[in-house]
């Protein structure tokens, strides 16, 4: 069935309040062209977006970024979400929040905090985030979250620099009192694809990490929920990216553009609409960018005739574009894709070389030049 004409409402929205962030992780999911503070939606606009989200049937909102806590109106947005019945999750680096701010978020009715870590090793963590002392700040923040009585998830992006410490990261999450830990292999779009060779582990390392996750699951049953995201480049089956394009999830950028996934802006020819000009419900139902890959009608024959078409929904469009050069192609993570072997070769190749330097996530060169002019004048 084609869902394009009457999509069921989304379950969740990722709200990127800002692209500003004190960390510079080389696998950041933000686009290479980061949005500037002056283009961000105002408090009043975000409050209206929350109303429209609840009305549309969204149940959970994830306040994300960049670092969402650099927005001073974060507690007001959380309070409003709570008031209108939305479940709110804060996805944070933790380095800008102190105890009074955490208490304010708890009071505002925040449901859950997701704290990213880069590693258990302090030095590598600082190297990945390009932020000296980052781990100490994160550990202190995790304690504040628990003291405030907020439930905590720890998440980490697995890459070649931290992959041998996956089990120790899970143990750290337990020690910090997290109820859930998410260990996700890097997904190669945006900044991560720029840093693919610097991040890619070997297949052997991936197998080893997976074994450690399995044994941690057995050892920690009932103590912590472990979510493990497998690496696409070594996969034989694609993931149901976003639960299917335009099926369950939407993403709103700092300036209000509504995307089917956070990397969708890499796909040429897609036109995104903004909450500044249209109600969210209307964008969800009829925006051409959402309709483009919704359902199964858009699929190439290989996928449209496959019995997995409503399981993986064709996998990831951004990955098809990045690796095959065509966003409408079969996801190369699928063993049936003619490009599956090429994808694997890209990974093997990258992982077999010594890691190059990171290209850290920063504002564009144009922006840094502008800053330089200001500071020297």
């Amino acid at each position, binding site marked *: 069935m084609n869902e394009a004409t009457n999509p069921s409402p989304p379950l969740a929205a990722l709200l990127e309040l800002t692209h500003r962030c004190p960390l510079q992780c080389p696998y950041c999911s933000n686009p290479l062209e980061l949005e500037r503070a002056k283009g961000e939606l105002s408090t009043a606009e975000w409050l209206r977006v929350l109303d429209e989200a609840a009305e549309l049937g969204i149940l959970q909102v994830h306040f994300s970024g960049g670092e969402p806590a650099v927005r001073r109106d974060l507690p007001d947005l959380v309070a409003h979400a709570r008031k209108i*019945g939305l479940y709110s*999750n804060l996805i944070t680096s933790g380095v800008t929040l102190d105890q009074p701010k955490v208490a304010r978020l708890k009071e505002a009715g925040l449901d859950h905090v*997701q704290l990213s870590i880069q590693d258990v090793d302090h030095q590598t963590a600082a190297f990945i985030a390009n932020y000296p002392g980052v781990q100490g700040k994160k550990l202190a923040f995790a304690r504040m979250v628990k003291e405030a009585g907020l*439930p905590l*998830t720890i998440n980490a992006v697995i890459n070649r620099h931290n992959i041998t410490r996956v089990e120790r990261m899970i143990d750290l999450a337990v020690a910090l009192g997290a109820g859930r830990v998410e260990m996700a292999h890097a997904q190669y779009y945006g900044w991560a694809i720029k840093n693919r060779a610097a991040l890619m582990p070997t297949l052997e390392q991936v197998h080893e990490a997976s074994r450690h996750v399995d044994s941690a699951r057995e050892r920690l049953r*009932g103590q912590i929920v472990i979510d493990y995201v497998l690496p696409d480049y070594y996969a034989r089956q694609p993931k149901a990216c976003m639960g299917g394009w335009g099926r369950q999830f939407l993403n709103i950028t700092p300036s209000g553009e509504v995307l089917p996934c956070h990397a969708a802006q890499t796909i040429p020819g897609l036109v995104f609409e903004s909450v500044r000009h249209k109600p969210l419900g209307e964008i969800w139902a009829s925006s051409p960018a959402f309709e483009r890959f919704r359902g199964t009608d858009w699929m190439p024959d290989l996928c449209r005739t496959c019995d997995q078409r409503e399981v993986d929904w064709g996998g990831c469009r951004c990955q098809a574009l990045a690796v095959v050069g065509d966003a409408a192609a079969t996801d190369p993570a699928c063993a049936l894709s003619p490009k599956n072997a090429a994808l694997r070769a890209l990974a093997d190749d990258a992982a077999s070389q010594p890691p190059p330097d990171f290209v850290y996530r920063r504002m564009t060169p144009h922006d840094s030049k502008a800053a330089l002019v200001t500071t020297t004048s």
Partner: protein
Amino acid sequence: MTIPPLSSEARPGLAPGVRLTFDKARDRWVVLAPERVLVPDETALEILQRCDGAKQVDAIIDELATAYSADRSEIEHDVKDLLASLIEKRIVTA
């Protein structure tokens, strides 16, 4: 780690970060948890609605056995099974 069997005296409640709420857009009850939305079936909903952190497992079983005029041992089995699995998933604490 092995999970201890659920005692009849335990007082199950929703875990921190978990909310049972009515989803108006879809006309159904849902459990909202970190990165998860679960849709309970009728039996699960009846049990979850009684997980208030005060009521004992025994009392929940009694209430449901009466409400459904069902065999108590059968209900006990269902309730304890479901609660054990929800505790493991950290939807419920006891």
